[in-house]
């Protein structure tokens, strides 16, 4: 597409990157078809191609109004459009820049919207604060209205974390929400890898993803640096990989190299950490993990998170592991569509998020599953909030 970026951005690294991405888009519109928001709303402005256009006009110097912000806010960041695009448009990166420029130039958000964003930033990325609030909520749950109660994950016992005994070691990034909401996941991962000759050592907190997508770039990058610092000693001691069991965080850690490329103090470390970053499913596949055979022939519907299939372009790996374990993996329609969790989307765009969740659960249930498996803590909690069918991280099922 033709572009004419404005002076304020043209010669900056961000501007050059955005221009290259925009020029790749040939405006064919194929991506509209797989975009969850376009499918719900039917407006070009809520489609990838339309959002690319909104970002383009903003970077070309047009005044940024509330409309641009609204339609960028409604974007899930699911990147289904990238999977569809034959031209290789890196929409995710363009969106990141677009959001930052919109944040600077659009009219201020309402007081309520700003307060909600501040609250999210103050709680979610801080594992201790989140854990504290979650415990209170779990205590209060019995007296809360049913609708609210459904949103609070129940306490589930975590298996014991095996003591490190192998020479082969990997770091596992703990994340922010997961240690409190579902400690069983990483413990199960540690056990599984332990059985296959690798000791898993926990490190770090929030990867920064939530803040980066909000977008609160400064805070997000600070959290990224903190995570790098936390992993670094273990990396220096020879950890083979930085394993992430939440696909949403995995995709962010893999982006560190790009995000911090202009930071002289961290560029190199970020490059190393990103190059070592692996989604748990990649590690399981590389280790040729042979899961123990599941006790019964259970039907599992697997919801592949967007950050797994579109963000990291990993497909079929988890499904195969589950099948090897003896589960029947039941195919559900529209596997490419987002469940509406999308980081903090369920808090910021509750209506669209609810609609997507409803559709996703309807699709998953057409397969009449005994269990639903997924690969990201956000999707897990979101899906579980509206279904009685147990939702688990796949590693908990192996």
């Amino acid at each position: 597409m033709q572009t004419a970026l404005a002076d304020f951005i043209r010669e900056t690294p961000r501007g050059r990157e955005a221009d290259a991405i925009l020029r790749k888009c040939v405006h064919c519109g194929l991506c509209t078809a797989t975009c969850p928001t376009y499918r719900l709303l039917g407006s070009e402005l809520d489609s990838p191609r339309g959002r690319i256009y909104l970002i383009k006009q903003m970077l070309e110097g047009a005044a940024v109004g509330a409309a641009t912000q609204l339609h960028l806010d409604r974007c899930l960041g699911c990147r289904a459009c990238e999977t569809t695009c034959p031209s290789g448009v890196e929409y995710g990166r363009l969106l990141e820049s677009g959001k930052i420029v919109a944040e600077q130039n659009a009219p201020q958000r309402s007081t309520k919207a700003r307060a909600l964003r501040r609250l999210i930033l103050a709680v979610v990325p801080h594992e201790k604060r989140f854990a504290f609030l979650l415990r209170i909520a779990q205590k209060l749950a019995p007296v809360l209205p049913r609708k609210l109660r459904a949103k609070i994950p129940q306490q589930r016992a975590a298996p014991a974390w095996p003591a490190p005994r192998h020479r082969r070691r990997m770091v596992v990034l703990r994340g922010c929400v997961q240690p409190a909401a579902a400690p069983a996941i990483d413990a199960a991962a540690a056990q599984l890898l332990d059985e296959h000759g690798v000791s898993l050592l926990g490190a770090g907190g929030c990867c920064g993803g939530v803040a980066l997508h909000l977008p609160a770039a400064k805070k997000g990058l600070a959290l990224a640096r903190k995570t790098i610092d936390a992993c670094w000693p273990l990396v220096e001691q020879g950890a083979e990989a930085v394993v992430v069991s939440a696909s949403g965080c995995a995709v962010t850690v893999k982006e560190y190299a790009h995000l911090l490329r202009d930071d002289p103090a961290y560029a190199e470390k970020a490059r190393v950490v990103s190059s070592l970053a692996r989604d748990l499913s990649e590690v399981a596949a590389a280790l040729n993990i042979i899961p123990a055979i599941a006790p019964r022939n259970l039907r599992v519907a697997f919801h592949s998170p967007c950050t797994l299939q579109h963000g990291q372009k990993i497909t079929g790996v988890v499904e195969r592991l589950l099948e090897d374990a003896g589960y029947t993996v039941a195919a559900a329609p529209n596997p490419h569509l987002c469940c509406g969790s999308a980081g903090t989307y369920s808090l910021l765009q509750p209506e669209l998020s609810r609609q997507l969740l409803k559709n996703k659960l309807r699709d998953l249930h057409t397969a009449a599953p005994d269990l639903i498996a997924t690969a990201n803590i956000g999707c897990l909690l979101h899906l579980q909030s509206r279904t009685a069918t147990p939702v688990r991280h796949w590693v908990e099922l192996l």
Partner: protein
Amino acid sequence: MKNKKHRLLKKLRRILPAEAVLGDEEQLRPYECDALSAYRRLPMIAVLPDNVAQVRAVLQLCAREQVPVVARGAGTGLSGGALPRTDGVLLVMARFNRILAVDEHNRTATVQPGVTNLAVSEAVAHLGLFYAPDPSSQLACTIGGNVAENSGGVHCLKYGLTVHNIMEVKAVTMDGTALTLGGRALDAPGFDLAALITGSEGLLGVIVEVTVKLLPQPDTARVLLAAFDQVEKAGDGVAAVIGAGIIPAGLEMMDNPAIRATEEFAGAGYPVDAEAILLCEVDGMAEEVAAQMETVDALLRQAGAVHIRAARDEHERALFWSGRKGAFPAVGRISPDYYCIDGTIPRRELGRVLRHIKKLSAEFNLRVANVFHAGDGNLHPLILYDANVPGELERTEELAAAILQHCVEVGGTITGEHGVGVEKINQMCTQFNARELAQMHAVKSAFDPGGLLNPGKAVPTLARCAEFGAMHVHHGKVAFPELERF
């Protein structure tokens, strides 16, 4: 003008919810073009109705106010058919996305116009049925757009174009009259008006419902990929297959630049050093398919194929086609912009025309990638250019005109399936004489006497042709001697 817009916005907001009426430049820019992004025009207003009553009310209002209306489906058109008017309303039909009924026994599906082409086939796949016309944009383009453009696709060689696969069309004219054209039976009494509105490019009425024909999925479908070291040989291969009386379900050709770009996207295993490949699909009963595959294989080898490979399974078959179907946008990987031409030629001219295109490409110093429906002689040369370089688009258009001119000279036409839109409106003057054009205007005014639906598209005014003819005097003859010169 500003006042008029303001007044109209107010009235439209009485018909539609506020979020479905767009009037700010910020919201309208993304609607300024379809997939032919070289042509852009900001609409005065865009509306997004979701029921027929709203469509009728909008049309009636616009007729009263003398405001032109342009319908839009998914905006994947490649001839600027949905290019808005600065003084008009853009009527976006994307929210009409429901499949209304599937009649398994009569093998029909009744759908709203904003349903995507692929969604129809997906919705009936469990019944063993499919909707045959499959434009490469089928994932995204709408049935309404398909009818308006009489779209074709890979499988149209055997199964026909859109016009051969629809039964009934419901449309609303500019004055709000609801029409039902065609019928649920194979033949409807009276003139075949469903055929008339097919390919009408939004000039006659706004399509609000379509009943399409469904076909049983073939028992077996197999595709083979043949590589050639010369484009002309691939052309001979096409002639040989068709000449042998075989009707492939699809017969597609790509030349080297196109192969390279699509392979990067699809990873289909296309040979990237071949000068051209042919994809040939045959379908039917298993035995018949096996026999035809053998014949095709032999014919293509005779024509000079250096390498032939059949898709091993359904997965690989899908992969072979996914490359071809993503071919246009995939060239975005090797060039920032492309301009897709859509001419037809008699099949026997294939090799010669391709040679000529190569010559023109060198002459104009612009790369050309060729992707096309070889089986029916429908060319899609993609001119690769850079819109950020001043003058390149103009040069591209000149090259495109030269290629289309050549198509007509060898006995072909200026559009195979993408429609005329605004893009080829001048070439219409080359294709038709004044009397023929006058007949087309008569049809237009029978449906839309005020000329408010998608004006300026598809059929050029005689004055426009005279102007165009004055610039292009061919073979020493003036194109429209009977018309006054400007």
